[in-house]
């Protein structure tokens, strides 16, 4: 990979997806883009680079971006954010939305679907309590290929063994020759859409809870701040934002503040959130 080519891909990625490509990751370009070059009929990486320098077809640029995303995920990833959802966030939402009986959750950057499906399984668990409710879970990602996998809900034996308790595997999955497929009662609860976090979020509507986990880490500070401030606009005044274990709003934006006692959970700074007091009261009691 020549230096000038590295700059080319770096620019494409940051512009189209916000992903930053550091020189130490340049080795990924060859291995990940060779299949893209082949698919589009370019014999060499140089030919691919030349095409991208001209007026490339949009599909080609999409494929380049898609090939450079990291889709690593698992069911109930890091466990704690899902315990928090079950023990604190969901009860709070049920209480405060009792009148309108509706709840909208967004898994932004959902990868192959493990995150929204994990949430859906937890919701299913208290299904009786939610009779008559309209619950929407939207899963979005920039990779069309990974969205197809999410939609199919088919996972390998390896994937269902990371983070997923055996009881839930038995309850919500069916075994197939090549692996395990999530049952329709869960699969159909998640609405998957192609969505680039750099794009206008307004069409997605307003949410009660947004999971935006393990994607901001790939963005530069400016892009992080921009995405966070636009997510804030899609959140109810008392809406909740959950970030990944290595992510924070601190030092990036003042729009969100952490909720003390709930790691990785944020609310709008403009709002005095009931959970701020509740959680600290629980901690004092314990």
């Amino acid at each position, binding site marked *: 990979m020549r230096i000038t080519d590295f700059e080319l891909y770096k620019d494409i990625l940051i512009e189209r997806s916000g992903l930053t490509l550091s020189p130490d990751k340049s080795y990924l370009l060859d291995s990940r883009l060779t299949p893209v070059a082949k698919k589009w009929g370019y014999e060499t990486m140089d030919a691919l680079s030349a095409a991208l320098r001209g007026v490339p077809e949009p599909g080609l640029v999409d494929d380049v971006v898609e090939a450079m995303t990291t889709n690593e995920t*698992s069911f109930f990833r*890091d*466990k704690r954010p899902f315990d928090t959802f079950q023990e604190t966030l969901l009860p709070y939402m049920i209480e405060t939305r009792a009148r309108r009986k509706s709840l909208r959750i967004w898994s932004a950057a959902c990868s192959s679907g493990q995150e929204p499906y994990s949430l859906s399984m937890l919701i299913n668990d208290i299904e009786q309590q939610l009779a008559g409710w309209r619950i929407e879970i939207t899963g979005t990602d920039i990779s069309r290929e990974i969205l197809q996998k999410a939609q199919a809900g088919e996972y390998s*034996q390896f994937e269902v063994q990371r983070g997923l308790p*055996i009881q839930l595997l038995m309850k919500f999955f069916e075994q197939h020759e090549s692996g395990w497929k999530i049952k329709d009662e869960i699969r159909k609860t998640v609405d998957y859409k192609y969505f680039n976090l750099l794009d206008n979020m307004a069409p997605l509507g307003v949410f009660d809870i947004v999971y935006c986990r393990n994607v901001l880490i790939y963005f530069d500070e400016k892009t992080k701040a921009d995405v966070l401030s636009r997510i804030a606009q899609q959140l109810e005044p008392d809406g909740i934002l959950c970030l990944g274990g290595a992510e924070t709003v601190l030092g990036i934006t003042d729009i969100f503040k952490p909720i003390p006692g709930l790691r990785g959970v944020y609310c709008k700074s403009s709002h005095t959130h009931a959970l701020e007091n509740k959680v600290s009261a629980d901690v004092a009691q314990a």
Partner: protein
Amino acid sequence: MICMVVDDSRVVRKVAKRIVQDTGFECVEAENGKEAYELCSQNMPDAILLDWNMPVMSGIEFLEKLRQIEGVKQPKVIFCTTENDVEHIQRAINAGADEYIMKPFDGDIIASKFQQVGLLQAQDKA
């Protein structure tokens, strides 16, 4: 904390032992259900990784006997076997298994299952 690895294959025991030790457990080994039962009677471990098909006494037979022992803190039992169909898994759960690993396994899967049964704290990592 002590984890017992019960498997008739020495290779599997060796691999599992390394992973279990890396996870921070002390490891004891048994090559079938009978030997495991005898070791448990002397000193009950905190966790057991249990194969299904073994000579002398199978994993499921061992588990059924183990769960009848009273007056001790029962260990967390995680099956770890090539049997990967719904019937086997259900039977294991009914016999009192806490978790179930379908071979082949790796360190990630074992750590994930230890978390599942509450023997390991989940780490906040990226």
